[in-house]
């Protein structure tokens, strides 16, 4: 499996870091030998709709098997405050490069 994959960003919960229309290149192998860290930008499968992807920031990585996620735009984000911690296997990968519009 090729390690890098790209996603197009929609919606506004990661403003100002990511704007709708930006692209992110995601490293799917980033967490093979190390765990996610607080502050990492990650793409995960939406815990409430597994065929959908979310891009969020890791807000707490103290759990060994799960992380908590938050949007940078706190007042307009559905994240771990709504759906709780996310198991590590739901993480697609770490955002490696942001391509701004």
């Amino acid at each position, binding site marked *: 499996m090729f390690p890098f*994959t*790209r*996603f*197009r*960003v*929609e*919606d*506004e*919960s*990661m*403003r100002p870091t*990511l704007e*709708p229309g930006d*692209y*992110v290149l995601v490293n799917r192998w980033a967490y093979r030998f190390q765990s996610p860290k607080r502050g990492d930008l990650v*793409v995960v499968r*939406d*815990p*409430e*709709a597994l*065929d*959908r*992807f*979310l*891009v*969020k920031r890791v807000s707490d990585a103290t759990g060994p098997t799960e992380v908590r996620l938050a*949007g940078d*735009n706190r*007042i*307009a*984000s*559905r994240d771990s*405050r*709504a*759906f709780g911690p996310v198991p590590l296997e739901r993480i697609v990968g770490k955002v490696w*490069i942001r*391509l*701004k*519009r």
Partner: protein
Amino acid sequence: MSLLYSLARALDRVSPAPIAHAHCDIPCGIYDPHHAQLAAHTVVRMVDLINQLEKPGPNATAEQRQEYTNKLTRYIATKEQHSEIAKSELRILWADYFKPDHLKTFPELHDTMWKALKTASKARQEINLQAAEDLLKATNDVALMFWKTKGFETITAKAPYPTERQTVYPKFK
């Protein structure tokens, strides 16, 4: 606009990039079907109380008639209010919580919601135990779908209220 951005956009024409949602949803995703279920229980209870209420006979005193009217009015007012609460809570779940994605899992979602709201109106308009029971069942059906979307199993158990009707509860881990 960077070269890489233009490249990514050009690639989209060949094979579109999947979408990563930075999803936004004010207010903060706090939803629960329990309010609707509780309101439906109240409607059932009010119909039960109305039906149990002893009607004043031809020889009843003015005080007895007054007491009867007072109780009946209070039960009806509460039934009105709580059928409206049930409708309001169902509408919030329908319009704000459930998303097009959920329709893939529950194609019957719109029909269930629409019928639930109509049943709530009927329970409000009439003193009709069947309509009240149907409303409770409809809120239970919605609760089943809701908790499934949240990844929780449910149990159906007798409610610990005087109505004692079967009610859907989540099994929290």
